[in-house]
């Protein structure tokens, strides 16, 4: 251990850490602390903030729009996580069989990830509105059911390829001997897949579920571009609801309430992260024993 500390003298902190720490303080630590503090204030800009205690939190929970956005987020998130991971996993299994065209399929399925949320939302708005007009249903701006499934379809289109890449890497890291041994013992292909491979992929599945769940909760650009919460905030997700509190809602109290909502939102996301962390830890522990 002594050599370690001699390797970099502590005074090099100034050179190696301080520049980033300064930027991090400006870009995260100050905004975070100020953000939490402002959730207890009434303000329109930081200079006119006045402390109001937990009033913002009471108003936030009392806001029907917020509760509706929370519920909408939960029900889209759950369906998205399920569909994206199931499809991503199935495609990964198919594409690790080394069928003809694997490289092309993998390229195509991942491609939408490179396109930004705003552009994705706009592309799908055009497509979905066309389909709706063909079947004679109201367009997205007036059709919350279409808005609900629209955002799910959009996110599937974007993220299936992403989790598929992770599942492919995980499947390929399983040594061939394992499945060969199982097959010699008489296991069928599907038995090998579900009984041997699936348990070994547990940590990858956890990671993908966590990534897709957090992405779903934090979803903003796609939501803004596809429906911007229309009709009448019925397809508004948490992040957009908070954003609208800040930049689209008249009234002196709304920024404070928006900030309180953001703190609640943050606590939810942190709880998801902790749950994932503990689950992965426990399972890893089981394997190590």
């Amino acid at each position, binding site marked *: 251990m002594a050599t*370690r*500390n001699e*390797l*970099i003298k502590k005074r090099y902190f100034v*050179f*190696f*850490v301080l*520049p*980033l720490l300064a*930027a*991090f*303080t*400006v*870009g*995260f630590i*100050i*905004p*975070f602390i*100020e*953000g939490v503090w*402002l959730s207890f204030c009434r303000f329109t800009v*930081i200079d006119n903030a006045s402390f109001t205690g937990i009033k913002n939190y009471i108003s936030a929970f009392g806001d029907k729009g917020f509760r509706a956005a929370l519920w909408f987020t939960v029900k889209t998130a759950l369906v998205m996580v399920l569909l994206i991971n199931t499809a991503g996993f199935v*495609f990964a299994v*198919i*594409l690790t*069989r080394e*069928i*003809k*065209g694997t490289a*092309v399929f993998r*390229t*195509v399925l*991942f*491609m939408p990830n*490179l*396109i*930004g*949320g705003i*552009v994705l939302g706009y*592309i799908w708005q*055009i497509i979905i*509105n*066309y389909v709706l*007009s*063909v079947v004679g249903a109201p367009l997205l701006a007036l059709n919350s059911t279409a808005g609900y499934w629209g955002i799910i379809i959009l996110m599937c*289109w974007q993220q299936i390829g*992403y989790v598929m*890449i*992770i599942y492919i*890497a995980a499947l390929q890291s399983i040594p061939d001997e394992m499945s060969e041994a199982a097959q010699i013992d008489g296991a069928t292909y599907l038995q090998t897949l579900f009984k041997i491979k699936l348990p070994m992929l547990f940590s990858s599945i956890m*990671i*993908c579920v966590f990534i897709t769940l957090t992405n779903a909760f934090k979803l*903003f*650009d796609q939501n*803004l571009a596809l429906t911007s919460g229309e009709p009448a905030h019925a397809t508004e997700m948490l*992040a957009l609801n908070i954003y609208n509190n800040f930049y689209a809602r008249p009234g002196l109290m709304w920024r404070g309430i*928006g900030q309180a909502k953001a*703190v609640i*939102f943050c606590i939810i996301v*942190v709880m998801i992260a902790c749950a994932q962390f503990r689950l992965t830890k426990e399972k890893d522990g089981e394997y190590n024993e």
Partner: protein
Amino acid sequence: MSKKEKSIDLFFTVIMTAVSVIYVYPIFAIFINSLKKESAIGTNTVFKMPDTQTFAGLANYSDAVSAKGFIPAFLLSVFITVTSVAALLVFCSMCAWYIVRVNNRLTKLIYGLFVFSMIVPFQLVMFSLSQTADRLFLNSPWTIWLVYLGFGAGLAVFMFAGFIRSVPIDVEEAAVIDGCSPIQTYFLVVFPMLKPTLISVGILQTMWIWNDYLLPTLVLDIKKYKTVPMLIQYFRGSYGSVQMGPMMACIMLTVLPAAVFYLVLQKYIVKGIAAGAVKG
């Protein structure tokens, strides 16, 4: 391979071909519409191929490029992405190396804060971040990289630290014995070894910053500066009067560089995603 397995694989190829066609179709639809005349674009003709009557050639593209301010937006996006990613790669890898090699309570605390910052949703910090950027005069395209460096540091430090932990310390010790200072050791010995992670982090951050809409919207003055996502959202915002043809040309011009970037760097992108996930 048995006959049965061969036919199963053929079946899968057919299925995946169908899936791929569905996947490409939305972009293809935007592409064919971007070639149509304005009057021929409507919700009920989206999937019709352009014919001699409706074909507009590249008129929408030249319109998007000349009248809609696409080129300045594109250059601005390139500039912001390149400066921010370069800063993230240099400063975050330096910091991660120090954190891993000088393993004490302070560096552990700093590392913990970086990891925490990855989880926090942008909405919590968005208002005070934009105000802080204003107060410190970071609200210009020349300085926005500092904001990205601060807010994006978490993932980068996390990935670099994960990699550095797996690198044996012997090489660095040898360099010190040969008379290298820590700064020389870092830049001559450690930094070149980080190449795979530099590429992974670079790609992940490029994808994020290139497509980011909200942070530049809140930090920059939209009247003066628009990145590509800002430009597209800006034109969309003015609903009734929006010209669909040039809009779709804009979309294609945005998708195209992303597609080229992807096809050229595909190998690294795929590795980067997998590496980022394993460490996530």
